[in-house]
Structures are given as structure tokens and as C-alpha cells.
């Protein structure tokens, strides 16, 4: 399957050994290179790999933690539910419907969507609105690449995303905790920002279902719930979409949801965060530390009002 191949290929480009702190992961990466060697790919690539200028060099969160501590209400509201229940999701074949204000609407098979892109590794901080954070080595490609191919019209001011809606595959959707399907949105300039990623993998492997397989959004300067999972529909629109959490509670969750230590939430102080795997908490940074790349998008906006 092509999707797999994409992420496997990039396994040769994934982070330097030194970043893979613990021995277990070291072994895994070593095994990956072993496979590359057998399949005739030059091992040199493994060391001469390119590090994305957008990647952080902070210590990576354990693969096990990333794949077992998830918010994905389609598979239950407990953090450990998705890892237990997400096996019912069928990610192949997978179609993505593209509609709205663009020249190339249609139903795209995922393989066709991924054919022209080159998957790369991006190590991003990931900050959940609940006050915890991770450092995740994503595999993916810039959302901008996909958007350009769909040729949005001048009316396309926002991009709207929708998760698959199928209670048979997503048992959590049988309960109306959220108004299904899960929807999210970005302003066009946010969507086109080079940081914004369409994620296809983690740690050089395909995404697991609980992490939003086969295709998810990754917007590192916003709270995690903006990074919608298992995307089945993309729509270009003139009006600002109402995202699921805003719909559920507009006093607590806004459209922008930029990480901001000065805008507190009634349930979680946002001044600090707990890095999963660490004991002490660390200070939360404005835009999750990506201000250099994204602060200009919000110039002149009152971030306290537009939270």
C-alpha cells in the first residue's frame, strides 16, 4: 500500500539516533535501517538525513505514551479508551471528499491524495487544552501542498474539516457527547502556514487508529483539539466554521484556540503544562513557542477576546 510505503521510506530520514533517547527506540530505528539495507536502499541516507528547520530538538515523548494517552471521543471519553477501542476503524480504503470553493472538488482516494506529496518528519510540541503536552515526531506533509492542488477560489476564506461519521466503526459516536461528526476549521492563512501539517505517521510508522489514522491535521501552535483526526471531508468556505468544541461550550473554547498562557480556562490554568513523562511542570509559551512563525497571523487581534 502506498501510504505505508511513504512512511517507511521516510524512516530513513527520521531523527538522529541521539534524539531517540531510550534503548528500545534505538533498537527499533536500528531495525528499520536493517530493513532498508536488505531492500537495497542506501544506508548512507540514514545518517545524511535532513532535519526540518521547523523541528524541535526537545526530548521525544515515548511512543507508548503517545499511543495510549489520547483524547479521541469517537472511541470513548477516557484517555485510555481510544487505544482499546479504535481497532474497529477501517482506514483502508479511505476516501476524502473535497468540496466547496475550489476548482478541483471531488472524492479522492487517499492513495491518490498522497501520491504527489513527499512525506517528511516534523518534531513538534503538542499542547492539550487539559494542561499536558508531548513532543511528537510526526510524519506528514504541509497542508498547503494539498490546498494548492485543490485550487481554492478567491471566495475560500476558511478550510473546514470533518472526521469520519460512522457509529459502527466509531462506537463513541453512539452517545451524543459531542455533536457528531467532529468538525474543525482554520482560516486560510493558518492553513497555508508552513507549520501546518497533514499527519500520516508518528515515529516513522503509520499513524495508529487512536492517533487519527490515516490522515489528520497537526497545528502545533493551537490546542490539541484543533488537530482533527481521521479526516473524511475537507471544505473550502467563505464563512468561519463552528468547530465541535466551540459548539459544545462557546464560553470555554473558541475558534482560534491558540495556546496562550494568559487566557485561562475555568478547568485548567494554562500558565503551565505537564510534559508527559516528566515530573515537574514547565511554563507554557504563547503560541506554544511558535510565535516566530505565526504571531504575525494575529497582528492587531485581541487574543483574549479571540481565544
Amino acid at each position, binding site marked *: 500500500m502506498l501510504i505505508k510505503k511513504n512512511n517507511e521510506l521516510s524512516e530513513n530520514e527520521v531523527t538522529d539516533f541521539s534524539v531517540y533517547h531510550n534503548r528500545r527506540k534505538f533498537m527499533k530505528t536500528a531495525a528499520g535501517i536493517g530493513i532498508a539495507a536488505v531492500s537495497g536502499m542506501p544506508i548512507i541516507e540514514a545518517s545524511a538525513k535532513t532535519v526540518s528547520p521547523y523541528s524541535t530538538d526537545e526530548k521525544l515523548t*515515548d511512543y*507508548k*505514551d503517545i499511543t*495510549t*494517552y489520547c483524547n479521541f*471521543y469517537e472511541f470513548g*471519553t477516557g*484517555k*485510555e479508551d481510544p487505544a482499546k477501542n479504535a481497532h474497529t476503524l477501517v482506514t483502508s480504503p479511505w476516501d476524502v471528499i473535497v468540496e466547496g470553493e475550489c476548482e478541483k472538488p471531488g472524492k479522492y482516494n487517499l492513495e491518490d491524495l498522497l501520491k504527489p506529496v513527499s512525506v517528511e518528519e516534523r518534531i513538534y510540541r503538542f499542547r492539550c487544552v*487539559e494542561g*499536558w503536552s508531548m513532543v511528537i515526531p510526526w510524519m506528514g506533509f504541509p497542508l498547503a501542498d494539498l490546498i494548492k492542488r485543490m485550487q481554492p477560489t478567491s471566495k475560500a476564506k476558511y478550510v473546514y474539516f470533518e472526521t469520519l461519521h460512522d457509529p459502527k466503526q466509531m462506537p463513541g459516536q453512539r452517545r451524543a*457527547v*459531542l455533536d457528531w461528526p467532529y468538525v474543525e476549521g482554520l482560516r486560510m492563512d493558518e492553513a497555508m502556514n508552513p507549520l501546518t501539517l497533514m499527519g500520516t505517521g508518528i515515529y516513522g510508522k503509520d499513524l495508529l487508529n487512536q492517533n487519527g489514522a490515516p490522515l489528520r491535521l497537526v497545528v502545533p501552535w493551537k490546542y490539541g483539539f484543533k488537530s482533527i483526526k481521521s479526516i473524511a471531508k475537507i471544505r473550502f468556505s467563505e464563512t468561519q466554521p463552528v468547530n465541535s468544541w466551540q459548539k*459544545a*461550550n462557546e464560553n470555554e473554547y473558541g475558534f482560534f484556540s491558540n495556546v496562550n498562557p494568559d487566557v*485561562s480556562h*475555568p*478547568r*485548567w*490554568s494554562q*500558565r503551565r503544562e*505537564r510534559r*508527559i*513523562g516528566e*515530573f*515537574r*511542570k514547565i511554563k507554557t509559551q504563547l503560541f506554544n513557542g511558535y510565535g516566530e512563525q505565526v504571531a504575525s497571523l494575529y497582528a492587531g487581534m485581541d487574543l483574549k477576546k479571540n481565544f
Partner: protein
Amino acid sequence: MKISENKFSRILRPSLFALLLLPAIYYAWGVWQDSLGANPLEAVIRGLGDWGLRVLLLTLAISPLRRLFNWPQLLRLRRMVGLYAYFYVVLHLFGYLWFDHFFDWEEIWFDILERPFITVGMVAVILLTPLAVTSTNGMIKRLGKKWKKLHMLIYPISMLGVLHFWWMVKLDITEPVIYAVILAILLGERLFNKFSK
């Protein structure tokens, strides 16, 4: 119903004591073994809060159970259960002060003012403290009638406990609703009992 004095003090009371200690052992063991998942400190704070509320409700269940089974001995377990509730709530608070704020008092003060569910939890522990302090035989004697009045505080405290959980939850209120229903039954039984006499 009645069991022999021997069975009561040699078996029932120590068994209950051991049983109520199990959650604390479970979490201590879990931290030691790192078996509490990706976010163990959160798991500890939450687990202790859960047990604080459960044991609080168990304390409130003793009188109704005594009436239901016509079993006066049960009342003599109530102090231990109540103190256990306080034990878990205080550990829960301690977990919060340490693992959430590392004893940064300024930060804690802001947090209490800023987050309504924390405010409510704090009020509940503050009200619970005099009940724990006055649970000794000497205090019961000294306070006489006032003791009973003071200990009626357990009713608002338990409501605050449920409210605290309700307000903490992001979206899925199933669990707090279950606790609220149990509390309503326990308090409702008292009203019913009072007015049907």
C-alpha cells in the same frame, strides 16, 4: 440484625479497615511500579479524589443501611469510615498541592480563586476538617448537642464534593451524575425517614 460482639470487633471492623486502605496501597504501588499509565500523577490525584468521594458517600450510607437492616452495630463503624473519607480527601488535596503546583502558594491561591471547581473543593475540605477534629470520644462528650449539629455539615460537604466533580468534567458528565443520584437517594432517605415518622 446483629452479629456477636466478638465477630464485630475481631472480624468486621478490621476487615473494613483493611478494605478501605486498599485504594491507598494501590496508588502507592502504582507510583512505585510506574504502572499508572502515561500521566501517573494525574491518575493519583484523580484516584484519590474518586475514593474521597466514594468513602464520603459510604459514610452517609451507614445510617440508611442501619435502618434498612435494623442493624444498630453499623453505627459504630461510622467514625472510622468518615475518617477514611477525610484521609483520602486530604491526600487528594496534598497531591494537588504537590504534583499540580509544587507548593507554589501564590499560584495555588490564584488557582483557588480562578477555577470554580477548585474553589468548591477547597470549601468542602475546609468544612470537613472540624468534623475530623471533633471525632474523638472526648470531643463528642464535650460538645454534646452541638456535636450533632456540627456534623450535619456533612450534607452540604457531600453536595459540594459532587458539584466539584461535576464542574471539573469537560463534557462527559456520566460519572458525576451517578454520584449525584446516589447522594440524592442517601439524603432523600433521611427526609423520608424524618417526615414519615
